[in-house]
């Protein structure tokens, strides 16, 4: 039971290290919305698609 609780932390760490790690040439500054509705409004305003992440709260 205990190790299940740490999974989100480990996965968040993985995402941070892989997607956003500064040493990776693919890393970039990303602005994350925490409101779905605001993200939809922003997508309408900019014409961009949405990258929606669901994850357990660490």
């Amino acid at each position: 039971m205990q190790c299940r609780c740490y999974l989100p932390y480990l996965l968040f760490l993985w995402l941070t290290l892989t997607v956003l790690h500064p040493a990776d040439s693919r890393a970039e500054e990303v602005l994350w919305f925490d409101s779905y509705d605001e993200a939809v409004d922003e997508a309408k305003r900019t014409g961009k698609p949405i990258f929606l992440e669901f994850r357990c709260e660490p």
Partner: protein
Amino acid sequence: MSEYVCVRITRMDDVDIGLFDYDRYNTLYFFLLNAEEHIYMRYGGRDSSSPNKYLNLDSLELALEQGLAIHRRYLSGDWLPSQRPKQLLPEEIPALVEQTTARGRCVECHLIGDLQNVQRERDGVLDKLSQMFRSPDIKRLGIELDIPKGLVVQVSRGAASVAGLLSGDRIVEFEGVPVWTFGDLQYAYDKVDRRANQVQLTIQRAMQHIDISITLPVRWWWTDLTYRQLTVDPRSYFKSSPLTPERKKTLGLDSLGFAGEVTNIDSVAQLLSLHTLSIGDIVFAVNGIGRDKVANTPELFIQLHTRAGDTLTLGVIRKGVRMLMTLKTARMSYRK
């Protein structure tokens, strides 16, 4: 990523879980969509062995590129969205409300996965084959992917190999649905009727698209549910190996029955005094039933046909002596 509007959701309270349907036992799951809420693709998925087996930077980057390509097609009128699923909000599931919002608790994705099934069981509509045994494993078809390359097949064996799937093929459609990522593939596979005998794939080989039919192996939908901690899963805390027809005949058992020899006892069984089975025991009946259309082991029969918390009577052969034995199934709980 900068070409997307990125949003991270950690509370599911107001999310349309009908639109954003996915196996809630994924700790991370992604959707690519447009402002009109037309979903382009999913990214995520897992198997019983690991929550992050299919999460990979290269395949994520590939998915993001493909998502942009679909978005350009959408903007030019060259991409038609599928029909929007019926809206479903967490507040519409009473069992979920009781355990979360009514107690001031967060509506976690795992709780949705669990309590949606609790509600279904209460309502008498729980289909365990599809709603408890969710997200079948493509490895049971003999498919292993070259994960960084998305849906490129690395190894094809078993049923997939017999059907003609080759290493290097790229899966582009599953049951007529376009698939771009493992998340798409696993979701489409999960939608297959558990009574189906075949699935249709379209693969890209060199510059050609080829349709193939894979004959589904028996119990193709089965996965190890241990990590799911499903409240509706009656845990029996033993594992058995199906007996051969010859062994059943020797023991005087039904040749078509689900009799199994106990190979593993979980220590939880002793701790909670759930049963007194020993390794080597033969379990040949549960509540007097020894044969099932689906189950090939007594523990699978228990999972499919009893409720968590039920007390059962097992027919057991121990050292050649037939006996009856009581087993109480356990009900799990996920951080409630």
